[in-house]
């Protein structure tokens, strides 16, 4: 170990004070009380001792960890000027040990000094000024421990040190000890406060992050900043989506390129204790550490590594005892990290550990919530030729909670359609069970029931029978296509009214608010009826839309209607997106509740409608027959749209022929074209096919292009089992 203490030398005239020892002592006391640092104290007391006692040499040392971290001040008279460069830190040998070990003054004449059993002479210290005689007093702390000492030699008047000199020196030593103690105490308190503040700042910053990488980067930056480290890094373990473990790292104080070429640290003798969570490793010079350089292939730092001598590594351990990673710090100089830095990084590591655990829990929660949410909403809505439907769903918050809103569309026993928007009280797993119960109860009963009132009553019973009670509000619309219109029967169980937008202008609120479900044995569920026709629009939504910014701001029905009308020409999806966007904006991006929106309208070509129906041969001749039939639409729809229609119709007809088996029933082609959309239908005998999920991926080989083209070009399309099979597609007129 090398001594890291420091010494300063001051040379100047030393003269006995004219004002007398007592007055000079008082002056020294005044100066000491104003001293700002330990070095000031050393200088003041050394000069005072030399002058008051009248000695050619005076030396004061503050010892810490022995001479290892000592500070020394030397005052020499002009007579000893030749020794001004002798600033060697005392090695702590010889008689001075008697003073520091026994904490008592020592006064020796030249003869006594040389005869002293512990006097070693000056042979170990070449260049040391001659030491004719010796007077020393210890610096003693209030608790009796030694803080250092003041040593004098060679009185100005060439006499021996006498008792009075000793008394003065002891007095000065006491004053200096007091000053050193208070300064160091203040410094320690200050350092502790700075550390606590820094830790708190880091802690607050770290704990407010939920992204793992952000947390570790912040911890690395903070620790690198608050310690003398030249650079710092945080190596941490990550479990990937496939369950595979791998290691990532962040850097601070060095560019990423400084480490880009190196492999991840392994459990070498140096790194092992950190990755195994055994404890903190703090080494003054890692290159001289017995654990260093034992591992292949590099036997030490790999070539090109930033130089490291001082090394500090702190494991980041989680509450279950597992090791999340480690914080590593380096500096090219030796011994820059102290116990206080170790403490600081330990604090940051434990805060990072808590934040990492929170982040992992949060990630897990988001993942679970998303999975659950997907299970609670229909993955795809049925494609209904007569009804266009668009939906939007947004859970409140950042996705860590399963929302309590839901929507669903399914066929009812009588062939009409059930369209549901609901809002379960609460959120999270409990709300999710109620949501699941609501959706599946309604779907199950829809196989035998068609009355909305009856279906909701059944759901009410199911909710009341549940062990875990939960209530919900539901708007249930039974939608029956009738010619070009849709007949709507709506029952609202405590749910906000639906909004009907009329093509001619104006809107109505639809629904008589009944009893929420899961509360009363006999809920009041009055049905209301309406007919919407081509160009009209029905919007169902949960109160999360109107009350996104409640109670400060509401989105009234008038505004919902106006927003929907504005977006309607761009399509139904635009309508629901517009409403969601408006609600989110109103709530400054953070709606207080989930929101579900469903818009529907008759999928009937509007405006001047042209219709054609053609029976086609079940065979190759049908290809030409399709072309002949559609050519009639060219003046109305233009050649390009007709070419696309022909392509899709040909594909559907080829499909029908392929699947018709031995049937001789002609294939029927039906086209209905309005100002806004064209509906194409091909009806035939045959077993048909299951509607694939959209979008259909591009085929790999030569086959399968027919359905792909249909899926690409049609806005909507579907398969219906009627008397035979009917495939339909909708194309927008642009």
């Amino acid at each position: 170990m090398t001594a890291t203490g420091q010494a300063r030398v001051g040379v100047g005239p030393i003269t006995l004070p004219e004002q007398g020892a007592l007055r000079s002592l008082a002056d020294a006391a005044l100066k000491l009380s104003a001293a700002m640092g330990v070095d000031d104290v050393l200088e003041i007391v050394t000069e005072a001792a030399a002058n008051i006692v009248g000695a050619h040499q005076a030396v004061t040392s503050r010892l810490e960890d022995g001479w290892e971290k000592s500070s020394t001040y030397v005052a020499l008279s002009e007579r000893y000027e030749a020794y001004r460069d002798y600033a060697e830190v005392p090695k702590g040998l010889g008689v001075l040990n008697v003073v520091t070990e026994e904490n008592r003054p020592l006064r020796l004449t030249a003869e006594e000094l040389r005869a002293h059993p512990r006097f070693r002479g000056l042979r170990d210290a070449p260049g040391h000024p001659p030491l004719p005689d010796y007077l020393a007093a210890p610096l003693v702390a209030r608790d009796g421990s030694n803080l250092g000492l003041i040593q004098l030699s060679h009185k100005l008047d060439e006499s021996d040190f006498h008792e009075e000199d000793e008394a003065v020196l002891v007095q000065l030593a006491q004053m200096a000890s007091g000053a050193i103690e208070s300064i160091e105490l203040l410094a320690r308190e200050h350092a502790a406060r700075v550390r606590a503040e820094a830790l708190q700042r880091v802690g607050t910053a770290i704990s407010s992050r939920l992204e793992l990488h952000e947390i570790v980067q912040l911890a690395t930056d903070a620790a690198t900043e608050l310690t003398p480290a030249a650079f710092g890094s945080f190596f941490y373990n990550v479990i990937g989506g496939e369950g595979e473990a791998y290691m990532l790292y962040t850097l601070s104080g060095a560019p990423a390129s400084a480490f880009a070429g190196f492999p991840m640290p392994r459990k070498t003798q140096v790194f092992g204790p950190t990755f195994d969570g055994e404890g903190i490793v703090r080494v003054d010079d890692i290159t001289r550490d017995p654990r260093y350089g034992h591992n292949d292939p590099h036997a030490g730092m790999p070539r090109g590594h930033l130089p490291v001598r001082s090394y500090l590594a702190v494991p980041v351990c989680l509450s279950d005892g597992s090791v999340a990673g480690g914080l590593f710090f380096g500096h090219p100089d030796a011994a820059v990290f102290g116990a206080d830095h170790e403490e600081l990084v330990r604090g940051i590591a434990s805060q990072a550990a808590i934040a990492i655990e929170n982040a992992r829990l949060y990630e897990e929660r988001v993942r679970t919530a998303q999975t659950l949410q997907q299970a609670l909403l229909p993955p795809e809505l049925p494609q209904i030729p007569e009804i266009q439907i668009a939906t939007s769903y947004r859970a409140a918050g950042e996705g860590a909670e399963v929302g309590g809103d839901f929507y669903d569309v399914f066929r009812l026993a009588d062939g009409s359609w059930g369209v549901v928007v609901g809002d379960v009280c609460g959120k999270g797993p409990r709300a999710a069970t109620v949501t699941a119960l609501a959706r599946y109860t309604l779907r199950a009963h829809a196989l035998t029931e068609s009355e909305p009132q009856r279906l909701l009553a059944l759901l009410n019973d199911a909710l009341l029978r549940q062990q875990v009670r939960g209530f919900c509000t539901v708007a249930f619309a039974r939608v029956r296509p009738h010619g070009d219109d849709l007949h709507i029967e709506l029952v609202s169980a405590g749910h906000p009214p639906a909004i009907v937008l009329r093509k001619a202008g104006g809107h109505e609120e639809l629904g008589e608010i009944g009893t929420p479900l899961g509360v009363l044995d006999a809920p009041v569920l009055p049905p209301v009826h309406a007919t919407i026709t081509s160009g009209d629009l029905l919007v169902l939504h949960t109160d999360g839309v109107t009350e996104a910014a409640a109670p400060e701001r509401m989105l009234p029905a008038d505004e919902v209607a106006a927003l929907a009308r504005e977006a309607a020409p761009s399509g139904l999806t635009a309508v629901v997106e517009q409403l969601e966007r408006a609600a989110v904006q109103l709530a400054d991006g953070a709606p207080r509740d989930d929101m579900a929106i469903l818009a529907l309208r008759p999928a009937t070509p509007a405006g001047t409608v042209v219709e054609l129906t053609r029976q086609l041969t079940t065979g190759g001749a049908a290809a030409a027959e399709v072309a002949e039939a559609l050519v009639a639409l060219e003046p109305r729809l233009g050649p390009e749209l007709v070419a696309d229609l022909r392509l899709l119709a040909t594909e559907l007809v080829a499909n029908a022929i392929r699947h018709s088996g031995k049937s001789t029933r002609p294939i029927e082609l039906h086209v209905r074209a309005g100002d806004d959309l064209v509906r194409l239908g091909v009806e035939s005998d045959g077993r048909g096919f299951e509607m694939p999920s959209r979008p259909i991926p591009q085929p790999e080989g030569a086959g399968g292009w027919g359905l792909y083209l249909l899926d690409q070009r049609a806005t909507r399309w579907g398969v219906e089992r009627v008397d035979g099979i009917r495939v339909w597609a909708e194309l927008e007129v642009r």
Partner: protein
Amino acid sequence: MTEPEITIEELGDGVVIVGVAGDLTFANAERLARELHAALDAGAVRLVVDVSDVGFMDSAGLAALLRAATTARRSDAAVALVHEPAGPPRILHFKGVEQLMRMFGSREQALAAPGA
């Protein structure tokens, strides 16, 4: 609708131009497929199929071309398509379809292209 007219033109060195005119659908795509495979069987190394005069093509027609291209690749031969970039058939303008085969605006371009 017209039955497609198929013309075969051998330019030597295994270069064969197949011209198609008319509508190419499930009703007649097999005929084209047979012609293309016959040309490949006869040793064509470069098959240029000109569909500039095809007003309409469905997925069966496309499949005939794709199957020929696959067969050609197996014997280190190649099939290139000639059609007017902005013109019919519509099917060639669908997403994904335009990358299936090498396509050229004219026979001259197809013949001049290296390695086609």
